[in-house]
Every structure is written in structure tokens, then in C-alpha cells.
């Protein structure tokens, strides 16, 4: 087992290394350039040349790449051409926003999806089962941004129940040492702020969590259906065990395994959705940041942001693979 984990871990390194090269090449083959991004509307020929000289953009690519990677390994992702701030600094501020949103979305998906899928399976082919299946298909078919727009319009603008933008009421002045606002508010014992942060989370989390919700519901249902027909469940029932105990101990527990792994697999999906959700809700996370960086040709941000996403996906994939291997030893043989 340990050997497998180590091997997987070692495999991760070349993947990320190759990715960093590809990313580097990709960014350097984009039209335009950082010099123009820096100078914006007033780019003059001399200005551009001077900056390109400054930036070392005239050096051969391998030289530039080596320089970049050397810095990355030292925790320096360069500076944003727009804000002139170190990318790492901004990443520190922004990744908690994305993680908080992602976790909230996942929580929504799990808390609603697992019971729903479970009940649907228990009422197999019943009205509730069919309804939940149908709704989950609709959920999957809704583009994240369209759902986000509709949710925002309905619940924030028309009904005025929830805020439309951001993570917190900016007049609140909450001290945010960790940048995980729920955590910060809890640590400061500022429950008003906590409530406010929650209110800001609701709509984006639902928008982002709807597709995972649909998937979790379906997987739970399928997994429960599988388990329901297993011998040990029948045996337990036959023994006259309390049905709720059977549900909990035998069915839920065993059905959870594929569900847990599926949850892990949603990371990429969540990050993708985050780009769109964050844009609609002016959520100051990594997703909207990357999108802005693409528009502004903010090379360092783009590189740093995508690298960050890739590392997150790689780490979660590793965890998933390890848990797969753990659950299903046959996998390791391949």
C-alpha cells in the first residue's frame, strides 16, 4: 500500500513538471505580450522595447523557464503586471475564497444529495425516485452561469433576501487573518459577521453545488440500490434488526464508498464552475482572478493561478486513487 502511495506521489512530480513546461510554452505563445499589458493604452515602441528588456523577455525561452521555475520552487510566482503585487500574496488572499466556496458547494451537494439519493433508492421506481432522477438530469443540464444569473436575479434582486455580490458586507470591517471568513468570524466570535458571510455564501454555493448535487444524488441512489440487494442486508433484515439500524449500519455505510470517491472527483468540476460562479457573484476567488488575467494578459497571475489549480487537482486525484486502491486492491495490479 505504502509503495503504491509513494509511486503515485512520484508520478505526480513529472506530471506537474511537464505541465509547468507546457504552461510556460503556452503563455509565451499567446499573442501580444506583458509589455503591452503593462503599458496599456500608451504603449510606445521604445516603451515596449525597454520593458521587454527589463523583463528579460528577449532571453531564450529555456533560460526564462529555468528562471521562472527556480523562483516558483522558492515560493515566488512573480508579480502581477496589473497590480504589481506578488502573485503569491494575492493567491493567499484568493484561494481561501475559492476553497470556502467550493467546500460550501460540496457541503450543499452532500447534505442534500446523499439523503435524497438514499430515499430515492429506498423508493425505487416510486414517484420520489423518478422525480429526483429527473430533477438531477435537469440540474446537470443547466449551465452554471445561467443558473447563477437566475438565482441572483430571483433571490437577491427581486426578493431581496440575499446579497448579490462578494463574500461579506464590506462595511463590516471583519478582521480576516486566515481569509477563510467563516473561520475568521468564528474566531472573532463575531456571530453577526458569521451570519453575513453565510448569507453571502448561499447563492454562489447553490449555483456551484447544483451539478455536484445531481451527481451525488445519482451515485448515492445507484450505490444504495446495489447494496440493498446484497445478502448481508437481507440477512440483517431477516434477523429482525431495527430497519433504521440496518439503514445506517449496513446500507449507508457500504453505499458511501463510491460516493466518497465521486466527491473527490468533483474537484476539477468545482474549479471550472468556480470560474463562472465567481464571475457572476463578483466573488474574489482564484477563478475570477484567472479569467481577468486572461483578459489582461497578466502572465504571472495566469501561470500561478493555473499551476495552483493543477496542483489542487493533482493532489485530490492522488487522494482519490489512493482511496480507490484502498477500497479495491485489484486496481493496484494494473
Amino acid at each position, binding site marked *: 500500500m505504502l509503495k503504491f502511495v509513494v509511486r503515485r506521489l512520484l508520478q505526480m512530480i513529472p506530471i506537474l513538471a511537464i505541465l509547468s513546461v507546457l504552461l510556460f510554452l503556452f503563455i509565451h505563445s499567446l499573442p501580444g505580450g506583458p509589455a503591452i499589458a503593462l503599458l*496599456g493604452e500608451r504603449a510606445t515602441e521604445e516603451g515596449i522595447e525597454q520593458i521587454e528588456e527589463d523583463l528579460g523577455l528577449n532571453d531564450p525561452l529555456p533560460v526564462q523557464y529555468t528562471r521562472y521555475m527556480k523562483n516558483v520552487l522558492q515560493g515566488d510566482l512573480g508579480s502581477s503586471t496589473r497590480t504589481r503585487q506578488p502573485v503569491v500574496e494575492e493567491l493567499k488572499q484568493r484561494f481561501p475564497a475559492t476553497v470556502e466556496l467550493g467546500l460550501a458547494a460540496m457541503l450543499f451537494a452532500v447534505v442534500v444529495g446523499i439523503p435524497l439519493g438514499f430515499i430515492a433508492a429506498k423508493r425505487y421506481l416510486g414517484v420520489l425516485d423518478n422525480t429526483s432522477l429527473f430533477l438531477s438530469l435537469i440540474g446537470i443540464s443547466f449551465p452554471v452561469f445561467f443558473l447563477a444569473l437566475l438565482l441572483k436575479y430571483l433571490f437577491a434582486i427581486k426578493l431581496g433576501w440575499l446579497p448579490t455580490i462578494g463574500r461579506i458586507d464590506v462595511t463590516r470591517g471583519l478582521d480576516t487573518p486566515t481569509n477563510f471568513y467563516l473561520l475568521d468570524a468564528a474566531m472573532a466570535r463575531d456571530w453577526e459577521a458569521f451570519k453575513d458571510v453565510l448569507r453571502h455564501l448561499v447563492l454562489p454555493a447553490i449555483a456551484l453545488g447544483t451539478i455536484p448535487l445531481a451527481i451525488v444524488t445519482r451515485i448515492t441512489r445507484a450505490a444504495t440500490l446495489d447494496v440493498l440487494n446484497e445478502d448481508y442486508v437481507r440477512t440483517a433484515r431477516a434477523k429482525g434488526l431495527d430497519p433504521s439500524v440496518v439503514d445506517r449500519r449496513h446500507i449507508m455505510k457500504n453505499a458511501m464508498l463510491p460516493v466518497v470517491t465521486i466527491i473527490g472527483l468533483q474537484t476539477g468540476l468545482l474549479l471550472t464552475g468556480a470560474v463562472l460562479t465567481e464571475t457572476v457573484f463578483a466573488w474574489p476567488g482564484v477563478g475570477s482572478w484567472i479569467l481577468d488575467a486572461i483578459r489582461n494578459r497578466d*502572465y504571472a497571475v495566469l501561470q500561478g493561478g493555473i499551476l495552483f489549480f493543477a496542483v489542487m487537482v493533482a493532489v485530490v486525484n492522488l487522494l482519490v486513487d489512493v482511496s480507490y486502491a484502498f477500497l479495491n486492491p485489484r486496481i493496484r495490479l494494473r
Partner: protein
Amino acid sequence: MRKRLRLITVLTILALLTAACADEGADEPTTTEEGGGGDATLTFGTSADPVVLDGALVSDGESLRAIDQMFEGLVTLTPGTTEVEPGLAESWEVSDDGRSYTFQLREGVTFHDGTDFNAEAVCFNFDRWYNFKGSFQNPAASYYWQTVFGGFSDGKTDSLYESCEATSDTEVVLNLTKNSASILAALALTNFTFASPEALQQYDADKGKVDAEGIFSPTGTYATEHPTGTGPFKFESWERGQALTMVRNDDYWGDFEGNIQTLIFQPLADPAARLQALQNGEIQGYDLVDPQDYETIQGDENLQLLNRPAFNVGYVGFNQAAAPLDQLPVRQAIAHSINRQEVVDAFYAGQGEVATQFMPPELFGYADDVTEYEYDPDKAAQILEDAGIETPVEIDFAYPTDVERPYMPDPQANYEAMVADLEDSGLFTVEKKSATWSPDYLDNVDNGRYGLYLLGWTGDFGDPDNFVGTFFQTEQPAWGFNNEEIFSCLDEAEAETDEDTRVGLYEECNRLIMDFLPGLPYVHTQPGLAFTANVSGYAPSPVSLEPFSIVTVEE
């Protein structure tokens, strides 16, 4: 934009201009009974974060907007106008040779950190700017210093600046290397506001590092955490992407007419998000209102719409470097084929007017009798036929994405309508192009990679040179023409010191330009600002310098 602003000349005329641009609400400020009181909070939705909060190092509007609330210069502009009035200097005298300005400073002014504002502080700031080195000399950093004063102490480029002398605590002499009547107006720029010397030093304003990509980034915390000026608001905190928070400066020397205690700038890139946040009460005001939302805002009794004076022009640029736009009949036919009135009516919500030339009517030098190109496809066909040009003429036409500009709130809508006009006339086939506004689109335009393109301009200063001079005084790849007659006309007009003659010269230039038809101006618009109904006192300015210290929020 395209060419360095020749501010020095531009500003000469500034003072003459004021009435034209003045907003009705720009009366001499009066002190009210409750001035300085109140504890209102106002959250304003901006289109982006500031870059840094050091006036010497920025040139973008969002940075300037924020810095302007916290910092002051020797002189300032009367709110809502381009009229120069005393700021931290109460009065000034100019030497006979025009090269030396003596300013009498206000007494009892302190910086936000409690240190005194005095003549030495003024000279400290001037010396700082003049002695910028390395990356600080990059136009991305010190653009306005270079525009107004030219070079630095290293002498690589001539500088207008000679020296600053603190002749007493409250008297400063600014010496220039040559005569400049316009320097006063230039000093009203937010970029020449004063920072506390102590804070600058303590928080390492001038320290920074150049990273592997060669981008200079300040390592000191001055410009991000400790900007220290003398203005009515002082810095409180700044969380990028979320909020820049400022609080009222209780020790402010002047009258604080409004009642805002806490002023927050929240960046919201999407104009729709700004409107929604306003409707939902999350912000109390925002800039760059989409004209399509004017009706919504005006129809909502909880909201109000303000408009800045029209100080811009939107146009279709023609690049004459390549066929067929080098032929005047083609340009004329294009002009007659586009229904500008329809575009302006549909997409500017009543706040736009069709442009006949490349500068707004409010400016002197505007000519009422330029050649106009009314919408008339038949005439266009006739022109092409007379010139023996085979139709359909193939042209390429580009528009920018991811941008809204005061003169161009919905570029794509304008573009599509114009393309439809051109194609429906049967005279043209259009190759459609687009790119992200910054940097690709601007880069392509600047390097003459488009035939027709949508663009526009918002004035920084009230002078025709800032419009037609910027566009047409030299040969530029974007326009791709070399017309000595126009170039020299504009040179002459710019250099002329007699006001009446100058007006006449610019009128003549405008006539020449519109006969030559280097592009098709189509709109002047009054950009909108939205506030909740309980906000009053905001004074929209043609150059967008708008103090919040005179704003009142009713509870």
C-alpha cells in the same frame, strides 16, 4: 493615449475653458452648519481596484479616484469643473520671466500621521519625483511626471523642473527651466499631491524589487497599507478585490461639507453586478452606468442618475495605409452608409448626440460648418459609381470585447448595427474582427492591423489639442495617412497664444479634417453615474475628479 499629451501647451488654455464644462452644481462651496458632522457610510462600486495608492506611480482612473480622496496638491479643481482653485497653497505669485512660482502655503495643515505639512514637505515630494530612478522612470509608473515635467535628475531627458526651495515654513519657490504658463493647471493633477515625508520614508515608498519577470513591485508597504496625505479622508484598510476603506480625517484643515464617515470603494468589474448591488442596497453609488440601465434607474424612486458633461467622442477609425480606405470616395461612401442617428438613439439612451467632428461641441475650436455625412446609401452608391470603384468593396472592420467605455458602452451592439448598415447597402462586404480591448485590440489598432475599427476618446483636459491634436497632429499607424496640411494646421493651432486666433485655427483644422475624413466620428455622450436617492452633493466632473467629502448621505 496615442501620443504623449503635450500637457504643457494643453493646459495653457485650461483656465479659459471653465464655464463651458462647469456643472450647474459647481457654485462656490459654502460652509453649512452641519459641515463636518454625521457618521454616514458610503460604498461606491468601482470598475477595478486601484493599482497602488501612490499618486506619483499611477495613471489609471481607479487609482486616481481613490488617491484624490486622501491627498491634496498645491492647487485643485473646483468640483464639477476644470477651474483651478487654491488647494494647500493659499496664493501664489509668478516671477516676471515665468520660470519661478512662489506659493504661500496654508498654515496648520497636518498629514494623517500627525506630522506637519510645510514647505519642506512640498520640496521633499518634488525632489522624490525628480529623483526617481530605474523602474520608477518607466512610463507605466511615472507617466504624468514625464508628461508634465519631462525628464529626471539623471538628465537623460530635459526636465521642466529645476528646483524647489523652502524659503520659509510656509513659502515654497518652484523653479522651472523654462517659461510655462500652464504649470498651475498641471499641478492640480492628482499625481502631484503630497505625501507625508515621514510616512514615505518609514514605509519604504521607494523600495521595491524587480522580480524574475522584471516587474517592479514595491516591497515597502507605503503604497498599499500606509498612504498618508492631508486630504479629507484617510486610509483605513485595503483588501484587494473586495474593499478599499477610508475614514474621515477629523483633523482636516478645510470644510468637510458632507457627512461621510466611512468611504468604501468596492471593485465590481461587471456593470450589471454594479447595478444589481445598487438596487439591492449593497452599494450606494457606481460609475460607468450602462445606458440601457438609465431607464431602470430613473424609473426607480430609490435611485438617481447623474451625468457627466459630454467630454468625449466615439468614432470609426479608417486606416488609410492599405486599400481601399486610402481612397476618399470609399471613406465617404462608408460615412454615408452608416446610420449613426439610429445607433445613437438606440444605444445611448438619450444621453448621446451624433458627432460631426472629432471633438465635443463644448470645446472651443468646434466648427459648426464642417462637412457632414448624412445617412444616404443612395448617395454612397453614387459616389462609388462616380469614382469608378467596383462594388461590393471589401473592407475589414473590428470591435473590442470585454470593455465598456463612456463613449462606447456596448461596442458590439454599435458594431453589429454598423456592419448591418454597410452590408445592407450592398456596397460593402465586411470581414468581421474582434479582440479583447486590452491589450490586444489597442495593440492591433495602434499598429495599424485593422482597416475600420471602433474607438473613442475621453478628454483629460479642456483643450482641442487633447482631442484632434492627439489624433491627427502626427503620422500614426492607426490612421495610416500623411497629410501635411492637417499636421501643420494643428501644429500652428497648438503653438498659437492668442486665444481668438487659436479658436479660428482649430475650427479651420476641424473643417480640413472632416473633408479629409480620416474616420467617422459618431457620438458624444454624457456618461452616467448612479446613486441611491439619499445621496446628494456629488459633483460630476468632465475629467472625473470628484471629491466625496462634499457628499451627503441622508439616513
